[in-house]
């Protein structure tokens, strides 16, 4: 059975799935930046002792799954979310959904995701896509990071739904339930709560590793990487930082541009002059993240490599930390009138 379905390309997979599934249920005004901002998607964390792919564990966005969950909740929409032990049960449930015309979000691992380029296939298990139908033995797939729809065989889909390792998807399926129409006032309220939660996450989270403090902490660490790790290993670490920051899904500048777009779009729901002004601060942060990536590339391409070059790199992050602090403090001072 094939449900009428319109593919939407997005920068980030979870934003894209959330936006698309919500539009399917009639929330016409939702966009990728709004879903990202309402879900308080912007974040930063560097977990010092944890290693991912032999490099530092760094994230520029909130935990996988939270954007969908928070955005639906803030709009007053109940969600269905199911995990499975049995592969048979997981497929039966999927079949039942698409037979009833319900496109569903699926969490998958990318290592065995056959249509992904080999270079991108790491053991990353928090990718998201939409299954919207089946034709013979192939499931119809809308992967938000792609320009067009694609397909996977039963075996291929089962394999990625049951990828193993950290954040194993366990066949996870999710979608928003039927709901009453979502009005502008509800979106406005959701934007307000999304911004307030993001202010809290970035400014007031305890510990030195997360939020704007975490960016500063990373900057200080980077200055020591050359001596501590040696140039080769330090280059690998910086390459990993840049990949987390810029790889498909961030919209550029470690999600900072998407957040700036969110603040700009929020103006339609909260006509305060501060919002487009604060948006510019996040554009500035995104621009500086990208400037720092160019510096990092100089180091991992072995064009740069002196301690002075590492200091410059670290100082970029100290400056970004200050810019983002300024942005979130300005957001925390907004006087919400509705």
């Amino acid at each position, binding site marked *: 059975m094939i449900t009428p379905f319109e593919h939407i390309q997005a920068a980030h997979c979870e934003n894209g799935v959330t936006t698309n599934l919500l539009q399917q249920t009639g929330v016409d005004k939702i966009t990728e930046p709004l879903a990202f901002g309402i879900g308080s998607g912007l974040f930063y964390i560097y977990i010092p002792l944890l290693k991912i792919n032999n490099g530092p564990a760094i994230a520029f966005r909130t935990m996988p799954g939270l954007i969908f969950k928070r955005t639906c909740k803030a709009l007053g929409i109940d969600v269905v979310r199911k995990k499975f032990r049995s592969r048979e049960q997981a497929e039966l449930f999927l079949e039942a959904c698409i037979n009833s015309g319900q496109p569903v979000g699926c969490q998958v691992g990318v290592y065995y995701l056959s249509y992904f380029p080999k270079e991108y296939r790491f053991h990353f298990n928090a990718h998201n896509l939409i299954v919207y139908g089946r034709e013979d033995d192939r499931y119809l797939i809308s992967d938000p990071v792609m320009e067009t729809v694609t397909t996977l065989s039963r075996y291929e889909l089962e394999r990625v739904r049951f990828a193993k390792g950290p954040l194993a998807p366990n066949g996870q399926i999710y979608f928003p339930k039927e709901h009453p129409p979502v009005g502008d006032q509800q979106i406005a309220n959701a934007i307000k709560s999304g911004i307030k939660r993001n202010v809290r996450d970035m400014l007031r989270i305890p510990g030195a590793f997360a939020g704007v403090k975490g960016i500063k902490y990373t900057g200080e660490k980077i200055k020591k990487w050359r001596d501590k790790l040696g140039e080769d290993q330090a280059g690998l670490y910086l390459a990993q930082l840049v990949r987390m920051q810029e790889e498909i*899904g961030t919209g550029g500048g470690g999600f900072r541009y998407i957040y700036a777009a969110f603040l700009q779009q929020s103006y339609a729901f909260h006509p305060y002059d501060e919002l487009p002004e604060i948006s510019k601060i996040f*554009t500035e942060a995104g621009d500086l993240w990208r400037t720092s990536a160019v510096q990092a590339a100089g180091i991992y391409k072995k064009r740069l490599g002196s301690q002075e070059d590492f200091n410059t790199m670290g100082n970029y992050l100290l400056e970004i930390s200050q810019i983002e602090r300024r942005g979130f403090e300005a957001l925390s001072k907004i006087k919400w009138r509705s």
Partner: protein
Amino acid sequence: MKKEDIPQDPSSLANFSKEVYYATDNAGNYVTGLSTGWEVKANALDVAWKDIEQRVAAAKQKVLDKQASPLLYFMELHLMDAGILSAYTGFWQWQIKRHLKPSVFRRLSDKKLSKYAAAFNTGIDEIKTMMH
């Protein structure tokens, strides 16, 4: 970033898809634009894969020198640590660490080897001979 500055460099995305960027137009409004890739991050990905290639080569040499069983080679080849391999095979991590010893690996039953073969998408003979 301005829309006209969205990078259009060659990258591994070439036969897959262009990616979405958020950037500002002349009036300063955010719009989306497509990119073929950015050299800075294409280089970062190259660096990561060169490191993996070196790990695979080093693992292969260790196996040839009888310092490790072929499992080490396949783990590096598939970017797996003991935790991920444990999740795919159902073996405990301490068992996997034992199986990395050539003397223990030699005595593994075909049943156990077939679990590894499934995880590595290959056959038992391929694992034993490091051919694939």
